[in-house]
């Protein structure tokens, strides 16, 4: 029952281009990969001999380490390149970097880049598989997938859940990947935050908008609380962090007023006391560390699916052994 690698295509650029069936298949594939990380020997040989470059043009600890664990647990060889702080910009220089890597015979590139669309740009220009680990404000597909896997683990299904994304939606690629993925799988999605931090026309993506976080909590059974991106807040989007916490912070008092069960996700790293209070982050509703655990399994699943070989051989080699 093999499916060709074109099942996902060559690259994973975002969740927007994927079908519901493709997204579901990634989530299903991640399930058995969870167990590998619980073994004494956390390694299977499936990507033995593949070389993967983690090309990070932006700071990242969690995502990079998560990808690296996933790659190593599948027995791939990995190289990390941090181009942070350099004057690299999308365009010739990015392609030159990738072409130089390709000249050393690599198989996959996992890339984070400050420019929206950088992953697609690169994927169209090199034959290696490209996995988007976050590009500007565009998408962060593996984060969206691990959020969905965590919701499915706890609630049994995605369909019919009411998920509200709270906070800095404007700058958030996590929000975009969540909106695409969750709506494709039949969840209702809303966003909540200061108007200055919601993208104009966000309703056109098929999401509700709540102006008050209390309303969002009353409506939702899942909150995905985004990090307030302090490094991107030079532009005067909010008056002050304290003010933000007072109006939009996920506090224990607010959570306790939820009418039903509430699941709270956060992509990390958290600004405790800004978008989420410590009481909540460490409390019974939060599944933030489950998200981190699931992140490795999701990335293993994506690497595995993209690494599969030539689709034209798929039929020929089928059959029992």
């Amino acid at each position, binding site marked *: 029952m093999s499916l060709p690698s074109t099942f996902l295509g060559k690259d994973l650029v975002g969740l927007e281009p994927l079908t519901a069936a493709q997204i579901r298949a990634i989530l299903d594939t991640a399930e058995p990969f969870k167990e590998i990380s619980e073994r004494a020997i956390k390694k299977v040989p499936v990507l033995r001999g593949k070389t993967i470059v983690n090309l990070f043009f932006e700071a990242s600890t969690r995502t990079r380490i998560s990808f690296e664990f996933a790659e190593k647990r599948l027995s791939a060889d990995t190289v990390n390149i941090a181009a942070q702080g350099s004057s690299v910009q999308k365009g010739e220089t990015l392609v030159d970097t990738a072409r130089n890597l390709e000249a050393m015979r690599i198989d996959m590139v996992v890339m984070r880049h400050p420019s929206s669309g950088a992953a697609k740009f690169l994927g169209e220009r090199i034959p290696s598989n490209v996995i988007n680990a976050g590009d500007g404000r565009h998408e962060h597909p593996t984060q969206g997938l691990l959020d969905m896997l965590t919701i499915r683990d706890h609630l049994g299904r995605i369909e019919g859940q009411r998920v509200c994304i709270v906070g800095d939606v404007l700058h958030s690629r996590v929000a975009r990947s969540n909106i695409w993925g969750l709506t494709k799988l039949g969840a209702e999605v809303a966003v909540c935050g200061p108007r200055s931090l919601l993208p104009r026309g966000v309703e056109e993506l098929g999401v509700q908008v709540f102006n008050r976080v209390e309303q969002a909590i009353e409506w939702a059974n899942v909150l995905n609380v985004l990090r307030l991106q302090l490094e991107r807040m030079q532009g005067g989007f909010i008056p002050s962090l304290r003010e933000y916490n007072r109006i939009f912070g996920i506090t224990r008092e607010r959570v306790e007023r939820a009418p039903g069960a509430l699941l709270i996700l956060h992509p990390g790293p958290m600004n405790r006391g800004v978008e989420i209070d410590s009481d909540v982050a460490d409390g019974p509703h939060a599944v933030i560390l489950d998200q981190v655990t699931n992140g490795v399994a999701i990335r293993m699943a994506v690497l595995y699916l993209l*690494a599969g070989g030539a689709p034209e051989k798929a039929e020929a080699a089928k*059959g029992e*052994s």
Partner: protein
Amino acid sequence: MPEPQRQLLMDERAVERALARMAREIVERNAGVAGLAVLGIQRRGVQLADRIAAEIERAEGARPAVGTLDITLYRDDLTAIGPRPVLGETRLPPGGIEGRSVVIIDDVLYTGRTVRAALDELADFGRPARIFLCVLIDRGGRELPIQPDVVGRVIDTAADQRVEVLVPELDGRLAVELIRPTGAT
């Protein structure tokens, strides 16, 4: 396209009798149930392992440890067949395999590549005292130096034929069928 021909090789009773004998042979080779761990290879080896474990329990009054093994990630032909998106569960028996007599159970033994992968996977989990290979059907056609210890039935097949083991949990009935492409004699 014309339907391929299906020929019944073993009916339900025949499979049950074979499994009962295989269970006895396993216990005999291991001189009892102590230290025995039965591992079914996904997918249909899993149901056969459950049946063999039940037979052993019926005959000996003690149940061996049971687990499942998915060898997909240990195959040597990922790039040839493409990835299988949905992998089966690998679940070692409680207590693991270290120092135990492990019985690998699969439905059909053909090229031996699945068994090779299973041996590699088991080596990553620990060091069994010994490993037995137990298959319901040995259809020949080996590509590796691998042979079974306990066999339900040996049959001769051509490369374009397939042998299907059907189990009630997945297929609604217990049987073994030989499938020939139409037009072949």
